[in-house]
């Protein structure tokens, strides 16, 4: 465990990328950070895909896997915490490859900080959002706008969170997001206009840098 925050992280924008490809790239980044390289902050989007976390329950799928796949939505089991979630274009995925030795090896605090970045970001866009004790993720009113789930190897994090920016929310009807009886919302739905993804990424980097006390290059 280290006493100071890391100096730098490198931000990368992968654009629209296949989920498995992104996962494999993350795993290689984790190995690099374990070997001493600086952390990575990755932005990307995925074509429609359901990912099943380690706490996945069958009843969280509201349609059969066959029906879901017929709709063109891939399904993958993954090594992150949480239940099922949907990724789709318009949802900003933020993958954080970070050595948690710099953050007191505290998973709870790390998740809280990630949620705080999302809450502050949404506030900057005029959306009042909160993290709810006992429920991970970020909520705007009763609706969920950000889902979170991470993995950790040798105290290096991977996976991260997805913010619904301009996401087509109809696909969430396929599932109980995160196993919850909750409606999903998006920044576009709440603001009544499309939101520029580039603005969201720039703001995320600024707020993440402040909250995690790192320089992002």
């Amino acid at each position, binding site marked *: 465990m280290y006493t100071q925050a890391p100096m730098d992280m490198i931000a990368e924008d992968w654009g629209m990328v296949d989920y498995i490809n992104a996962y494999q790239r993350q795993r290689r980044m984790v190995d690099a950070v374990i070997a001493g390289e600086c952390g990575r902050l990755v932005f990307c989007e995925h074509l429609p895909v359901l990912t099943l*976390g*380690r*706490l996945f329950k069958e009843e969280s799928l509201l349609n059969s896997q066959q029906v879901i796949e017929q709709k063109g939505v891939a399904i993958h089991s993954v*090594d*992150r*915490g*949480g239940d099922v979630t949907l990724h789709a274009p318009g949802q900003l995925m933020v993958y954080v490859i970070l050595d948690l030795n710099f953050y007191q*090896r*505290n*998973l*709870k*605090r*790390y*998740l809280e900080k990630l949620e705080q970045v999302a809450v502050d970001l949404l506030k900057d866009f005029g959306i009042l959002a909160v993290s709810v004790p006992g429920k*991970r993720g970020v909520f705007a009113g009763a609706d969920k706008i950000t889902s*979170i*789930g*991470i*993995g*950790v*190897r*040798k105290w290096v994090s991977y996976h991260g969170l997805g913010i619904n920016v301009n996401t087509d929310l109809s696909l969430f009807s396929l599932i109980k997001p995160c196993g919850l009886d909750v409606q999903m919302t998006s920044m576009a739905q709440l603001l009544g206009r499309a939101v520029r993804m580039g603005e969201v990424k720039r703001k995320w980097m600024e707020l993440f840098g402040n909250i995690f006390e790192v320089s992002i290059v």
Partner: protein
Amino acid sequence: MNNIILPELGEGITKATVACWHVKVGDQIHAGDEVCEVTTDKATFNVEAPASGRLQSITVRPGQDGLVGGVLGIIE
């Protein structure tokens, strides 16, 4: 003999569920190897072997909860 312990994961986290073991009883393992994966509500965490040796037994099986500071398995 060395115990594989579920480490501290953060304040307020008192237990985690074993998702899977990456090794079998009888396997030779090395200090620092990731031997099992545990999960809390939103995080998975890979537990490392504290020493080299042979995995003698698994104390907490997949689907069962382990307590922070408790023994997940034993290396001989």
